[in-house]
């Protein structure tokens, strides 16, 4: 069921590459290039994750079992509910991406939160409960802020006299000189803070490490790879308005600041992190920071950010799925207890190392190209300070992650290899492997259709 729907979704998305669908519901739902890009990411990631999920659910035994950290008993949520929520999650994310109406966008965005909350609480033990509560509370509050931002947007469109405009993006952009700038600025700040919470920009990121580390790995992959992008899309849409109204300087500066700050926070927490799933979560924060930075720089940076969104989603999917494999065998998330993955899980070990190289942006991978593009944008615009800080933070993160990844992958094996449990099932390895291949391909060769799509998307957002 899961796979069928996922495959169907992907097929439809792929179809959209060939024929662009007309807008429906008075332009409330429409697929432009940016949406197509994000939709493709989500769809692909979901398809691959669903294969993994099938294998994952097969491994999860029924009944109660002891928790591996403090031995308290817990049971899983029913499988059917898990799958139902997963599918609902996919549909809400699709609506978010397709939506051109800010109100509808908000409704769908809140719905993603609600759909994903039960997913995080799949393992019914107290830590996941805590994570779910924090996730639900912080994100709901954050998104409520974004709602206020939306209403400010309405206020911005109401000129001193005359009728108001509806919140459909295209109409708003045409309306560009009727904005009341101060309201638009307030709206942007609130939406940035609101969707930024969901996207995991520091300092509103606090729910993210908890939720990502406690949810099942499939869910972590989807949260990190797809959901964060959706939230980012909300900020992008508002940014589009700012560009149309001619205040992109203002919004770019804000994005730049938040981006760099997120990277800095992530760097601090990655150094010396003791939980590898949390480390991956902080890495998500870092990459969201990079995305915001790319948009904030403008010009070529926007192209870089678009490209980086693709790369990050796929790579993070790969890493979280692999982390799931490791967790399944080692039964611990502590970085100091995991040693010698390469020996115990040879295939997963290779994927782990590959993912590491990809996520820090080493040359053969797509992430290198996109991070480099953003760096180039910074230097092109004479923002040497930004470039230097960016590089310094990237290298700090490289050091922090290299320490963890290499220590866990290499070294003497820390658990007895027992052939019965340590069998790498095809469904555990093939999905992340696909992702790794795609990221590698994107680094080596950019298909022309894809590159055109990226350029078009960047153009919509005011880049080149």
């Amino acid at each position, binding site marked *: 069921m899961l796979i069928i729907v996922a495959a169907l979704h992907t097929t439809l998305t792929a179809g959209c590459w060939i024929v662009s669908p007309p807008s429906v519901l008075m332009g409330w739902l429409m697929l432009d290039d940016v949406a197509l890009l994000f939709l493709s990411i989500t769809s692909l990631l979901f398809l691959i994750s669903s294969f993994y999920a099938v294998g994952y659910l097969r491994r999860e035994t029924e009944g109660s079992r002891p928790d591996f950290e403090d031995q308290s008993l817990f049971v899983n949520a029913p499988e059917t509910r898990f799958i139902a929520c997963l599918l609902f999650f996919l549909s809400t994310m699709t609506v978010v991406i397709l939506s051109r109406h800010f109100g509808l966008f908000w409704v769908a965005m809140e719905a993603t939160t609600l759909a994903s909350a039960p997913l995080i609480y799949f393992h019914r033990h107290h830590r996941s409960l805590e994570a779910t509560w924090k996730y639900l509370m912080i994100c709901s*509050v954050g998104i409520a802020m974004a709602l206020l931002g939306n209403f400010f947007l309405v206020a911005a469109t109401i000129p001193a006299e005359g009728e108001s405009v509806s919140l459909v993006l295209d109409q708003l952009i045409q309306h560009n000189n009727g904005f009341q700038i101060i309201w638009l600025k307030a709206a942007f700040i609130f939406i940035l803070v609101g969707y930024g919470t969901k996207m995991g920009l520091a300092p509103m990121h606090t729910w993210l490490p908890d939720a990502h580390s406690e949810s099942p790995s499939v869910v972590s992959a989807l949260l990190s790879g797809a959901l964060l992008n959706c939230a980012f899309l909300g900020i992008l849409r508002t940014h589009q308005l700012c560009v149309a109204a001619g205040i992109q300087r203002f919004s770019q500066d804000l994005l730049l600041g938040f981006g760099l700050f997120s990277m800095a926070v992530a760097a601090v927490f990655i150094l010396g992190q003791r939980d590898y799933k949390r480390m991956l979560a902080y890495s998500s924060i870092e990459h969201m920071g990079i995305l915001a930075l790319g948009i904030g720089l403008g010009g070529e940076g926007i192209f870089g950010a678009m490209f980086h969104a693709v790369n990050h989603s796929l790579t993070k999917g790969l890493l979280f799925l692999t982390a799931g494999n490791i967790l399944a065998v080692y039964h611990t998330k502590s970085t100091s207890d995991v040693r010698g993955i390469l020996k115990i899980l040879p295939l997963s070990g290779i994927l782990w190392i590959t993912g590491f190289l990809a996520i820090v942006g080493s040359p053969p991978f797509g992430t290198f190209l996109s991070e480099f593009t953003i760096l180039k944008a910074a230097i092109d615009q004479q923002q040497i300070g930004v470039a230097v800080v960016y590089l310094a933070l990237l290298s700090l993160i490289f050091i922090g992650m290299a320490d963890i990844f290499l220590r866990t992958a290499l070294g003497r094996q820390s658990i007895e290899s027992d052939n019965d449990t340590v069998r790498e099932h095809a469904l555990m390895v093939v999905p992340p492997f696909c992702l790794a291949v795609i990221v590698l391909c994107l680094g080596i060769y950019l298909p022309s259709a894809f590159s055109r799509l990226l350029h078009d998307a960047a153009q919509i957002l005011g880049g080149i």
Partner: protein
Amino acid sequence: MTSFFDAIMVLLILTNLALLGTSRLRTCIHICALQGLLLGTLPLTTTIELISFRAFLLAGGGMVMKAIVFPRLLERTLQDTHVQREVEPFIGYSISLLAGIGLLGFSLWLGSRLPLPSMITSPLVIPVSFFMMMVGLLLIVSRKKALTQVLGYLVMENGIYAFGVAISPEAPFLVEMGMLLDAFVAVFIMGILMFHINREFDHIDTDRLSVLKD
């Protein structure tokens, strides 16, 4: 009519202050319900010329949701979890009240800095909705119980709703309903989660949810 609208705004402010100063969980829920009731009348007051069917439906929907359904849900949770009836704040009630007054002053100042769009019926709307948002945040931050956090969330949501109703009488119906539905599901899930938290930990004090940290 404007005076009537202002009166509702002042009453809204008073309910917020009452929320900050109340020590009983159940009373808090009731105040929240009252707030929902007041908010429900807002769509009727903004469209004075013709009370359209839509405004009526919106008012009715909002009122039923915010004044009956949410409080019922929360009361059910309160009963099921058998928690203590005290709010248990981190910040004392009097200080909370004073903080509330401070926030009110701040939001009035903030409201005076932003230009008024022509649609708005009363200049009080913007400060009041700011104020309700901030009170909601204050409740979330300064109270221990998960239940009061949900209440805080509701108050925030209410503030935004007030702003939305006042500013865009012709916002699409679908969106408004979607927002209400979202809020409903959010409260519902939070209620379930609270139930689970209570079963797992035997309390709903969020300050003791502190296993996950760096």
